[in-house]
């Protein structure tokens, strides 16, 4: 361990740590642009220059490793002057078009300029101009705002290992270029948008949709495959408008794939069932929640229960379903697509199975099947939970008994369900899911559910109580506690211990991922 002092605070860090990372540990953020913990060090923006006592020159803290007895000044006059100089230089050719820039409000150039930049510019010359360029994929490049930090170039070269971007030209004519005939079509390319510290690389999907300060944000998990990348769900006026990766060194480092990122519109869907309903005289009529739950409980009494569940449902809801169907059986199906790995990070890929909780469903005893209705017996009560049955032959349902729909949309091919219980979708409730490596991760509510819809764990908890079982859950964490007490695999886990980076179920390793790109540099 190396002992040093940063801004008067003594600290002891591992040998080889950079000053910038050491400073983070004592709560000092050294302003920087080109440095990113998930990328190889470039040391080009010169923003992170700090004063190290006895050193002849200011040191780039991202590229300088700590030394015994070092005394580092981050906010000394000399370092502040240097950063002020860099900020002025970065802005001389910048269009200062914050009012029409998507990055505004979450722009590091804005933030640091407000924090320690000059209040005016001494630049009296014409500004450089380059036209906006479509980089392909979801990415559009606005060169006038670019500060040439090269994070995007390094991501494509060293993490995605698909060299598409480069620095073209020299001097102040330099800009990010795209190799002839290539586009940002790599499955993980849109990460360059998040990596860009300014408004130079923008998402076409998010373009002009919202200002950063209008957004509400919720910590969540990407529901679109079994990898379980940690995300931030961002909403404006209760509409999900963007998903961005949330750093988790155990799952997705700093990244998420384009497919997961852009596949959020289904959570905004409008054709929802949003009121509890009962069948009366062959037609569905709106009912009170209590009536609908009671009716469902009556149907279940003494019958064998067959559940077709969605692997998008939380561990909590799937657990409650297993309690309700005791003795019956549960199945689920999962959509599939091509796997697309991110080469620079160990064990990170867009997975073949495109649902959040496949592992959890299997751990809780649900059977994975391409034909989830197979095995539905004559006279069984069928519970369709969160599954839309799109593309499934509904003929198998005819021999069965009554059908209870617990979902946010009406499933295809269901003729005359006896009871419909509307539930929140993934973005509208709280819970946990288990990823393909058995990591249990929490997700929180990002939107309000429409109409009278209720969170799935609450509906299923009520139903469990209505069929006479022990059930008094007021929070999803209580359902999880019950799950942990019942199922050995989840033993010892709770919302408190999971935190927002999750923990693996019993028997799975809790291993931090090596970012291969950084390790190699």
């Amino acid at each position: 361990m190396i002992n040093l002092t940063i801004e008067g605070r003594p600290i002891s860090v591992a040998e080889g740590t950079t000053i910038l990372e050491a400073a983070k540990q004592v709560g000092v953020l050294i302003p920087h642009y080109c440095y990113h913990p998930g990328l190889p060090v470039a040391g080009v923006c010169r923003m992170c220059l700090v004063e190290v006592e006895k050193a002849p020159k200011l040191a780039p803290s991202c590229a300088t490793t700590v030394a015994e007895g070092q005394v580092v000044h981050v906010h000394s006059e000399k370092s502040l002057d240097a950063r002020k100089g860099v900020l002025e230089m970065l802005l001389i050719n910048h269009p200062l078009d914050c009012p029409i820039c998507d990055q505004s409000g979450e722009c590091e150039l804005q933030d640091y300029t407000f924090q320690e930049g000059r209040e005016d510019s001494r630049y009296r010359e014409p500004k450089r101009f380059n036209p906006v360029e479509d980089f392909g994929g979801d990415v559009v490049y606005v060169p006038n705002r670019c500060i040439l930090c090269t994070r995007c170039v390094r991501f494509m070269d060293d993490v995605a290992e698909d060299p598409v971007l480069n620095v073209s030209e020299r001097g102040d004519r330099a800009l990010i270029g795209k190799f002839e005939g290539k586009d940002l079509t790599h499955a993980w390319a849109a990460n360059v948008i998040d990596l860009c510290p300014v408004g130079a690389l923008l998402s076409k999907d998010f373009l002009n949709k919202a200002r950063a300060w209008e957004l509400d944000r919720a910590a969540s998990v990407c529901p679109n495959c079994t990898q379980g990348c940690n995300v931030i769900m961002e909403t404006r006026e209760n509409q999900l408008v963007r998903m961005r990766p949330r750093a988790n060194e155990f799952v997705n480092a700093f990244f998420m794939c384009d497919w997961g990122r852009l596949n959020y519109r289904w959570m905004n869907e409008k054709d929802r069932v949003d009121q509890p309903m009962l069948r009366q005289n062959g037609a569905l009529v709106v009912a009170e929640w209590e009536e609908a739950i009671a009716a469902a409980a009556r149907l279940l009494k003494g019958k064998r229960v067959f559940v077709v569940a969605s692997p998008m449902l939380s561990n909590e809801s799937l657990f409650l379903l297993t309690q309700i169907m005791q003795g019956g059986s549960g199945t689920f199906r999962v959509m599939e697509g091509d796997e697309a790995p991110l080469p620079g990070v160990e064990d990170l890929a867009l997975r073949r199975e495109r649902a959040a909780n496949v592992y959890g469903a299997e751990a809780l005893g649900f059977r994975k099947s391409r034909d989830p209705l197979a095995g539905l017996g004559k006279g069984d009560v069928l519970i369709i939970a969160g599954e839309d049955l799109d593309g499934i032959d509904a003929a198998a349902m005819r021999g069965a008994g009554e059908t209870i729909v617990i979902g946010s949309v009406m499933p295809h091919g269901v003729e005359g369900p006896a009871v419909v219980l509307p539930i929140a979708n993934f973005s509208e409730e709280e819970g946990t899911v288990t990823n393909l490596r058995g990591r249990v991760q929490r997700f929180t509510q990002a939107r309000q559910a429409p109409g009278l819809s209720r969170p799935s764990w609450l509906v299923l908890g009520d139903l469990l109580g209505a069929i006479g079982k022990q059930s008094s859950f007021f929070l999803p964490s209580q359902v999880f506690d019950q799950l942990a007490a019942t199922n050995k695999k989840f033993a010892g886990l709770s919302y408190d211990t999971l935190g927002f980076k999750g923990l693996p179920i019993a028997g799975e390793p809790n291993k931090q991922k090596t970012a291969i790109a950084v390790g190699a540099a």
Partner: protein
Amino acid sequence: MGFPHESHQRETAVLSQHFGVAEARTLDGWKKRGGYQALEKALAMAPADIVTVIKDSGLRGRGGAGFPTGMKWSFMKPGDGKPHYLCCNADESEPGTFKDRELMRWTPHALVEGCAIGAYAIGAETAYIYIRGEFTEPLYFMEQAVKEAYAAGIIGKNAMGTGKRIDVHVHKGAGAYICGEETALMNSLEGRRGNPRIKPPFPAVSGLFGMPTTINNVETLIAAAPILMKGADWYKKMSLSNPKSTGTKLYSVCGNVQRPGTYEVVMGFPFREFLYDLCGGPVSGRKFKAVIPGGVSVPIQSMEEAEASLMDYEGFVEQGSMLGSGGVIVIDDAQSMVRVIARIARFFAHESCAQCTQCREGTAWATKILERIRDGQGAMEDLDTLMDISENMTGKTICVLSDSCATPIVSGIEKFRSEFESLIQGRKFHPVLAAVA
């Protein structure tokens, strides 16, 4: 010698004695002049002994920084199990400098020999000569010389029959000034964009292809052969002033002198006599106004400073500048210093690799201001802005290109402020009228 002029009697032609003799370019002609004897001698010595001789001679890097060559070579640890490389920096792009061009044009075998000695001394089997893209003629002669040396078995798998392997490759750059920066040169050799690398790690630890590498200037490597032949003491004695600067140094002289050309004088030679006697002084009717003694990266000297300078590493520093690469640019009273400095800044703005913010933006910004002043659109506060930009460009970037741009700006404004002020205040500078008056 004062090539292409007749050699001046006060010159000491060691490296330049065969300039102008076409025969010296060929292997036979070179051997006739004592060529490759030093290599033969070197290959019979232990590498460490060669390093010691070079250390004792006091030879320092001729590319500009003046780092002791023997010490640089001693950083290469033998027996570390890694391949070592020698790079010869022949990317001579510093405006005002053309000594390496002449060395390679007239004595290409001297460089092959120097590279072979250097490579053997640092435990390398491969030497790369990275030659500037625009140097088509030197490139031709270098390639010829390497071909001849291979054919004669002087270099190759079995260099001079000693069983030692020494390969020399000539690599042509694409004409970027920044590729003369040692780590950018290595990137360029590896096929990457010629961007300087962050140091540490230094080339002796991780250089070309990530392996221990030594990089030397053309003139430095060529000097190794006569040192080995005549001994360290002989070389050390060639010092008229400071004992830390030894040997001879080539100077490329250009600008407003009567006899521009390549000169070779002993370290510590008085600059005043060099300018007025060897170079012939100013052209008729004009007076010297300023001198840039070591390529455009070094501070501009006023004539008082220049005339008081002794021509060695310490001598120029004492008089507010640096020896640099030995590219002497002489400026007389018919020139506008603002024009000169604006042109220098434009060069650096054009050649900045665009990595570091201060360099990418600063060189271009300074150029725009200087050209505005030059065109009579300047304001007094521009001078303060220029000084402040230059301060921001100094000592804060990966390499020294940005410092190099700031240096002539700062020294120019400090020493010739009145020229800037008169342009700003609308008093046009008329070079021709000034010359007549």
